[in-house]
C-alpha cells in the first residue's frame, strides 16, 4: 500500500469520528462515545508510530531544530503522511476531549457543533475557542449568574 492510499484511508477514517462528535447523542451508548475519544485515535496513533519508526531516519537533513530541518522531514511523502496522520489523530483526540469538557459545563450541542468543526479544520484555533468558552461559562457560574 502506497503513501497516497494510506493518506486517503486515514483521512476517511476520521470522518465518522467527527460526525459522531458533532451530531450523535452522547452518554447514551458508551461504545459510540469511544469511537472518537479512543478507538480511532488509537488506530491512528498506531499507524503514526509505524510510519515514523519506519521513515524518520530516511529524511536527509531532517530534524526538529529549524524550519529547514522540518521541511526536510516533510519533503519525503512518507514523512509528510506521518505528519498528516499526527494532525488527524491529535485533532480528533482534542475534539473528543473538548466535547467532554464542554458537556461538563453544559455548553449546548448547537454551540459545540461549530467549535468542533473548527477543531476538525483548524485544530488549535477551535481548541482556543472551546477552552475560552468553557472558561467564560465557569466564570459566569462562579459569579452565580447562570441559575
Amino acid at each position: 500500500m502506497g503513501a497516497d492510499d494510506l493518506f486517503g484511508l486515514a483521512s476517511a477514517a476520521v470522518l465518522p469520528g467527527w460526525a459522531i462528535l458533532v451530531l450523535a447523542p452522547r452518554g447514551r451508548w458508551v461504545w459510540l462515545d469511544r469511537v472518537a475519544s479512543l478507538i480511532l485515535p488509537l488506530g491512528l496513533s498506531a499507524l503514526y508510530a509505524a510510519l515514523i519508526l519506519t521513515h524518520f531516519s530516511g529524511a536527509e537533513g531532517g530534524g526538529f531544530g529549524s524550519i529547514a530541518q522540518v521541511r526536510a522531514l516533510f519533503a519525503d511523502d512518507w514523512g509528510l503522511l506521518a505528519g498528516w496522520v499526527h494532525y488527524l489523530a491529535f485533532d480528533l483526540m482534542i475534539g473528543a476531549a473538548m466535547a467532554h469538557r464542554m458537556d461538563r459545563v453544559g455548553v449546548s450541542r448547537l454551540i459545540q457543533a461549530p467549535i468542533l468543526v473548527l477543531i476538525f479544520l483548524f485544530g488549535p484555533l477551535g481548541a482556543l475557542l472551546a477552552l475560552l468558552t468553557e472558561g467564560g461559562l465557569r466564570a459566569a457560574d462562579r459569579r452565580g449568574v447562570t441559575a
Partner: protein
Amino acid sequence: MNAIAKTPLRGLWALTALSLALVALCLIWAAFDTRTFQGIAVWIKPLKFNISFVVLFSTLAFVVARLSPPYGQGRTLTIVVHIMAASMLFEALYITAQAAQGQGSHYNDGTPFHQAMYGLMGIGAVSLVIGVAVIGGLVWRDKAAAFTPLMREAIVVGFGLSFILTMITAGTMSSLPGHFIGDPGPNGAVLPLLGWSASVGDLRAAHFVALHAMQGLPILALGVRGARQSHLWLRLAACLWAALTLGLYVQALAGQPFLRF
C-alpha cells in the same frame, strides 16, 4: 453524566462566553495581520461584530435571569434562544472566514455563493432582532418577573425600539449597494474606533444607536429611578432616543456624516 440543565439562560451565557472568546481571537489576530479590506484592517469587522454579540447576549442573559420559571424556562424562550444561537454562530463564523480571506461578507455579491450567503446573513440578522422583540414581549407578559415597574417598561420599550428602529435602519442599508451615502473615496476620514465616515453619509451611525436602545433605556431607567415622575422621564428618553436615531438616519440619507472633520 451531565447533570447541568441546559436552560435558555445557560445558553445565553455560553453564547456570551463564545463571543468573548471570538473577541480574544480577533485581538490575537490583530497583532499579526496587516492586510486591509477597503482601507480597513481585515480583523476590525469581525472584532466589532463579536463585541456586539457579547453586549447583546449578556444583556439578554441579565434580563432572562429575572423572568419567572414559566417564561424563563418556557418553550418560547427555548426556541428563540436556539434560533438566535444558530444565527449568531453563522454570522460570526462567516464574517470571520471572509475577513480571513480578505473578502467582504455584507454586500458581497461577487459569486452566486457569496450572494446566497449575503442573503442568509440578512435572515440571520433579522432573526436576531426578532429574538430581541420576542424576549421584550416575554418581559411584558411575565407579571411575576423580578423587575420594578420602571425597569419592566424600560426593557419592553427599549427592546421594542431596538427592533423597530433596527428594522428601519438596517433594512434601508440592505436595500442599498453599501452603507455609505456618497463616495468617501479610498482615504476618506473616519471616526476613531467606530469607523463611520466623517466625510459622507454613513447609515451605520443610525444602525448603532437603533441597536442599543435595548441597553440605553434600561441604563437610563437606573439613572432616573429615584426621581419623581420617573416613568415620564423614561418615556421622554424613549422619544428622544427614537428621534435621535431617525435624525441620524435622515442625516446619513442626506449624504451628511455624523461628525465631519
